[in-house]
């Protein structure tokens, strides 16, 4: 692995770190609310991965510019960043907020019944029942 190689793939390494942190947070934190936050970190990591994949050096955003007569200019493919991953990731963001909303609703329901979100407390309550 040359330095050049590492430099060109640095984003992917950092995404891997972010992803592992999210996963670790989901496994290791003992509070359910914190687990849901870690889940969000993990989902954002994936979005960052796809967006890195789509980027092009020195290219412009995928909104076609207007020329002086207010007509849309046609462009060449390499001048504009790849729009497909952007469209996919819009979907992923919406899915993540939907999942978070549902998870939080469940958390509130759990808190009503068990009186806590700490796993050890919940477990004690479950054994008592």
């Amino acid at each position, binding site marked *: 692995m040359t330095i050049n190689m590492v430099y060109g793939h640095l984003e992917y390494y950092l995404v891997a770190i972010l992803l592992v942190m999210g996963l670790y947070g989901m496994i290791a934190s003992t509070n359910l609310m914190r687990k849901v936050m870690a889940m969000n970190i993990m989902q954002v990591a994936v979005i960052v991965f796809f967006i890195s994949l789509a980027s092009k050096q020195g290219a412009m955003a995928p909104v076609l510019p207007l020329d002086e007569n207010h007509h849309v200019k046609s462009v060449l493919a390499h001048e504009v960043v790849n729009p497909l991953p952007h469209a996919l990731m819009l979907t992923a963001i919406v899915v993540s907020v939907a999942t978070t909303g549902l998870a939080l609703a469940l958390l509130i329901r759990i808190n009503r019944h068990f009186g806590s979100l700490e796993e050890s407390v919940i*477990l004690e309550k479950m054994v008592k029942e």
Partner: protein
Amino acid sequence: MTERIPGVLGEGVSTRTRWASLVLLGLFGALMIAASPGLPRVGDANSVPANHVADYYIEKGYEQTGVPNIVTAVLADYRGYDTMGETTVIFVAGLSCLLILGTQRTLRRVEELDLDSPFGSVVLDLGCRLLVPFILLFALYVVFHGHSSPGGGFQGGTFLAAAAILIRLVRGKGESWGFSRRQALIVASIGGSLYVWIGIIPMFYGKQFLDYSGLPLAVTDIPHLRAYGTLGIELGVALTVMGVLIIIFDCLLGKEE
């Protein structure tokens, strides 16, 4: 007995499982880094994914769909079917919150939010009054101008919901601003139905599902027609997102039944 997996309802997380999970995750990270040389360099304009489908979208997108914002073109037209699924995901989240956090009374009566001491004060109240009209205006701009600038149904819908949420946060109990959960559900359903029916109508005119060029509008220019179809579904998406985000907010803040 409840079966235990580490961290998800284990009896706390012991140091050993913590280390085991760290090792496993480290392995995962190492695998991902080991696989990464095969990925295209970040910022490479000649990578494989940039030259197969994406270049087609960039070069033909505007003349085929009439939408200068290529992300919107891909999202709402080329892959409009995906977006329909995505709208459904949002709707499912709203329905789920209704199912989990109570429905019956809340959908019948006037809203009762459990926000005893809202963050309200005179300053906040005035600021909120000042802000909300602009937020709404901006939201509509984002929805309708999503064709030629960043933005679109999701963002616009989120801002519409944000305006309602802001009022609720500042003015608190009872001030649901004439927009109850029931109405939010109705708005969300109408938005989604709009999307699906814009998809279904072209089938009566011999076109495929979601083919906006089959819409019975008095526009002959096909890219223009497609742009109108795109606008229609963006509107549907905005309504759904607005309704559902408000439903989730109210459910999270709703009184216990």
